[in-house]
C-alpha cells in the first residue's frame, strides 16, 4: 500500500517538519490578518462612499483571484519589478495576510452591523460614553460571535498553505512528493500511503481547531 516508505529513514520527521512550516506560515498570517482585519473591518462600517468602494474592490479582488495567482504575482512579480529577491516564506505570508485580512475584515464588519441599534441606544440612555459602550457592551458581544468564525478562517488558511509548495517552500505536501519521487523504484505504490498520511496530518491539525470553533459557537449563541 505504500505505508512502508513513511517510516523509512527520516521520512516521517521530514513530513512533520513540513507540517510545521505550513503551520508557522499560517500562524504568522493569521495573527496579521486578525489584527489588520479588525481595523479594516471597523473602517468598513463607516458610511463614507470612497471607503465603501475601496473596500468592495479589495474584497472582490481577494475573492476572485485564486490564492495561487496572488502567490505567483507576489513571489515572481515582485522580484521582476524591483530586481530584489523576496523570500518564498515572506511572499506566502504577504499573500495569506492580504487574503486573511479581507476575510477577517468582512467578518468583523458583519458582526459590527449585526449588533442591534437598540444596544447602542440603551447604552446611551444609561449614560455610558461612546468608549464605554464599545468596551463593555459592543466589543464583548462581537468577540463572542467572532471567535468561532475566525477559527474557521484559521483552518481554511492552514489548508490553503498547501499551495506554497508551488513556490518551492518545503511544506508537508512537497515533502510527500519528494518521498514518493525518491522511492519510485523500491515502492512504486508509495503515493497512496504518503498522501494518506499527508491527509491525516492536515486533518489532525485542523480537526481540533474546528471542533473548538463548533463548541464555542454553540456555547455563545
Amino acid at each position, binding site marked *: 500500500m505504500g505505508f512502508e516508505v513513511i517510516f523509512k529513514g527520516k521520512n516521517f520527521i521530514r513530513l512533520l517538519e513540513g507540517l510545521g512550516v505550513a503551520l508557522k506560515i499560517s500562524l504568522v498570517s493569521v495573527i496579521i490578518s486578525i489584527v489588520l482585519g479588525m481595523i479594516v473591518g471597523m473602517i468598513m462600517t463607516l458610511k463614507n462612499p470612497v471607503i465603501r468602494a475601496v473596500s468592495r474592490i479589495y474584497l472582490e479582488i481577494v475573492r476572485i483571484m485564486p490564492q495561487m495567482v496572488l502567490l505567483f504575482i507576489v513571489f515572481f512579480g515582485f522580484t521582476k519589478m524591483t530586481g530584489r529577491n523576496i523570500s518564498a516564506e515572506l511572499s506566502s505570508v504577504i499573500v495569506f495576510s492580504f487574503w486573511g485580512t479581507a476575510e477577517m475584515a468582512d467578518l468583523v464588519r458583519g458582526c459590527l452591523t449585526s449588533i*442591534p441599534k*437598540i*444596544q447602542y*441606544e*440603551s447604552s*446611551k*440612555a*444609561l*449614560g*455610558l*460614553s461612546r468608549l*464605554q459602550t464599545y468596551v*463593555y*457592551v459592543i466589543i*464583548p*458581544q462581537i468577540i*463572542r460571535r467572532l471567535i468561532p468564525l475566525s477559527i474557521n478562517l484559521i483552518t481554511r488558511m492552514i489548508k490553503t498553505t498547501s499551495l506554497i509548495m508551488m513556490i518551492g517552500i518545503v511544506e508537508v505536501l512537497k515533502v510527500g512528493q519528494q518521498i514518493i519521487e525518491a522511492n519510485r523504484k523500491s515502492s512504486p505504490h508509495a503515493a497512496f500511503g504518503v498522501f494518506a498520511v499527508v491527509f491525516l496530518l492536515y486533518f489532525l491539525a485542523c480537526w481540533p481547531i474546528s471542533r473548538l470553533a463548533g463548541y464555542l459557537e454553540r456555547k455563545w449563541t
Partner: protein
Amino acid sequence: MDEILKIEHLTKKYDDITVLNDISLTVKKGEVLVIVGPSGCGKSTLLRCINNLEDIQDGKVNIEGKTGMVFQSYELFPHMTVLQNLMLAPVKVQKRKKDEVKKEAEQLLERVGLSSKKDNYPAQLSGGQKQRVAIVRALIMHPEVLLFDEVTAALDPEMVREVLDVILDLAKQDKTMLIVTHEMAFARAIADRVIFLEGGSIIEDTTPAEFFDAPRSERAKSFLRTFEFEKVH
C-alpha cells in the same frame, strides 16, 4: 410644585418630514403623564428627543436632572447576567461603590419579584421578566424622570400585567413618569394627565377622566373608538 421637564416649541424633522411640530409641554415633579395616539404620530420620537437620543431642529428641552428610559424591545445586554446588567452603569458611569450598588440591585430585584434571577442571563428570562429587569436597570440610576415607550407592546398578554404592576408601584412612590402605552385601562388608572398626540402635534392635554369619558376633539373620539368592540349578537 416644581417643574421638572419643560419642552418649548420642539420641532423634529427627518429630512423634510416634520415628525414633531411645535410641541410645548411642562411636567411637574411626581406627575404621571400618559401619551397616547395612533401609530406613527411621533410618541417614540418625543421620548427620544427628551432623552437626547435624537437631535432636534428647533425648540428647547429642559430637564432638571437625569432621565431613565425603558424601550419596547428588550434591550438588556445579552452577554451579562441580570446583576451585571444592573450594575454596569451605576459603577462605570456614576462611579458608585460596587457593594452599595449590588445591595440596591438586590433590593430592587426583590421588589419586582426577581431575586432568584439575579445570576441568570437575559436569554433565560421571559419577556415580562426582561422588561422588569430593564425597569430596574433604569431605576437604579436614580433618574429624576422615567420614560416608558410601549414597554408591554411586545409581550404575550399574560405577561403584561406583571410589568404594568411594577409601573403602578412606581407611581405610588411619586416618581415622575412619561408613559407611552396602548393599554387604555392602565393609562386611565395611572395617569395624572393624558396627552393625545396626532400627526406630531398635541391635540389634547387633559385629565384622564375627561379624555376617556368626554374627549373634545373628533380625532380623539375616533382614536378611542378603535379600542371598542360592538356586540355582534
